[in-house]
């Protein structure tokens, strides 16, 4: 059987069994992933996070001149260097900075930037800067390592990043709902059907289903044993998602990549109110998530990568907001990270159509994480060699 056919059948097995989440299906298929037990948590900051008010060039007069109403005052900035500091809402992340576990990458983008949310997000998801590809970089990982269950999105719709032409990796929005329960009174009939002799692909699907059933209870047991090792902030939907991801990690489901999102960072008006709140939710959520994992002895297994589809324009608009721009800021934190600020700060007096000029290709950041953390050859996944500063250990 060709690999693609195998993957299609495996996916079918998932969909046939009530959209079983990746960990259950993984147990069923007994897929062998490439060596390694490191986990990458990818967080999408939807809407286009404003990088300049995130990693603030507080020593740059041009920044304050361009943003008379919405700039972060120098005295409020969380100082990282003589010229840069974090947004004050991101204080919960300072402990990662202080311990060398937070890397910030400046002016990240791609050639010929696209200001459309949809188009730019598709480029970040696929890694194809032409926007033509319909295959996501995480979906390609699944195909490459032959494990259609290596990644899961926590949300309602699987993003392009987790799709290929052949595969749609699973999305979960409630772990507890994903249990394999046969309708009452059908158990016996189901057993009989499963007991029928089969060959080849049919036998594979049947065997996968049997494994799935036998492992479902075990995995659910593991999930039910989970006890949060940290207090998650209330009224923070993003933190609630991360808590569910922590359950998945703690349940030892064998997944390599977990994906979720927070938004909307599309701050065309009243930016300070919305971005201040969102960055606070993002930071406090991450802080609780990592504390939780640390308390369970799992912190060393998890690296967090956060991105947004673009940054925003340097000058504020006349609604105390900012419009779509180009280069932005990426975050990488947790295990395996060599903390610091990487890349050149934007030259605010040398802009491209009023935007920060991108200097670091985002595909280089993916590549470094693939090669150094997940130990998956990046050239195979990204289709070419890309480079990034050494932000990983």
């Amino acid at each position, binding site marked *: 059987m060709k690999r693609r056919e195998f993957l299609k059948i495996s996916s079918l097995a998932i969909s046939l069994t009530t959209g079983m989440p990746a960990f259950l299906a993984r147990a069923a298929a007994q897929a062998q992933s490439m060596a390694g037990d490191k986990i990458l948590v990818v967080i999408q900051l939807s809407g286009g996070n404003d990088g300049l008010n995130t990693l603030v060039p507080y020593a740059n007069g041009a920044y304050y001149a361009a943003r008379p109403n919405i700039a972060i005052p120098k005295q409020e900035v969380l100082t990282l260097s003589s010229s840069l500091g974090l947004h004050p809402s991101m204080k919960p992340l300072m402990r990662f900075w202080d311990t060398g576990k937070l890397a910030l990458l400046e002016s990240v983008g791609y050639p010929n930037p696209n200001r*459309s949310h949809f188009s730019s997000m598709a480029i970040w998801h696929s890694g194809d800067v032409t926007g033509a590809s319909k295959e996501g970089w995480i979906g390609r990982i699944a195909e490459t390592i032959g494990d259609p269950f290596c990644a899961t999105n926590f949300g309602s719709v699987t993003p392009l990043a987790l799709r290929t032409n052949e595969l749609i990796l699973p999305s979960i929005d409630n772990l507890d709902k994903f249990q394999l329960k046969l309708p009452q009174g059908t158990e016996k009939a189901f057993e009989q059907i499963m007991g029928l002799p089969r060959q080849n692909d049919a036998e594979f699907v049947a065997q996968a289903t049997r494994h799935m059933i036998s492992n479902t209870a075990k995995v659910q047991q593991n999930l039910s044993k989970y006890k949060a090792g940290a207090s998650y902030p209330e009224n923070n939907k993003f933190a609630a998602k991360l808590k569910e991801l922590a359950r998945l990690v703690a349940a030892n489901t064998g997944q390599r990549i977990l994906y979720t999102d927070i*938004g909307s960072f*599309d701050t065309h*008006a*009243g930016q300070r*109110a*919305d971005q201040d709140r969102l960055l606070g939710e993002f930071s406090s959520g991450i802080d609780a998530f990592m504390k939780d994992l640390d308390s369970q002895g799992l912190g060393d297994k998890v690296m967090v990568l956060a991105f947004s589809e673009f940054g925003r324009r340097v000058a504020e608009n006349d*609604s*105390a*907001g900012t419009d779509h721009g180009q280069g932005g800021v990426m975050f990488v934190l947790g295990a395996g990270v060599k903390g610091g600020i990487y890349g050149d700060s934007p030259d605010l007096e040398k802009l491209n159509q009023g935007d920060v000029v991108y200097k670091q290709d985002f595909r280089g950041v993916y590549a470094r994480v693939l090669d150094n953390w997940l130990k998956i050859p990046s050239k195979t996944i990204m289709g070419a060699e890309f480079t990034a500063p050494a932000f990983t250990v």
Partner: protein
Amino acid sequence: MKIPTKNILLLGFCLVFSSVQARPPYRLQAIAQFHFEGSPLKKSTMACTFCHINDTGGAPWNPFGESIKAAFRANPKWGIADALQGVMAAMKDSDKDGYEDALEVFAHTLPGDAKSKPKEDHKVLLERFMAAGGPDQYKSNKAAPVDSSDDE
């Protein structure tokens, strides 16, 4: 290459879905905060011309939209809910048609278009408006659901 019909239907659904997703959160907030009834997916519930000159939204803004923008500039830490509330409380007549913005919101006419104004006598309408709670009825303690952003 032939594309199966079901895929075309699916694509159609996705396109419709994506345009639904494209509704900006500011409009959703205004619909909720101004107590406009009806599906937020329908322009008849609240037209883009409530704040914009063009029916498709975007620049330029009408005088009421400009009042909201001015509120943001004057109060950079305000969110959209604060800005809407602030403009209502100001009892300004943005389009200078003789009816304050809050009265036009109450009467469901366009506060940024002088050609659109309540038919009811100003004094009578004002009395009804104040009896209903005055500008305070447009206070908001809760943000409307924030959707993904528009694509432009």
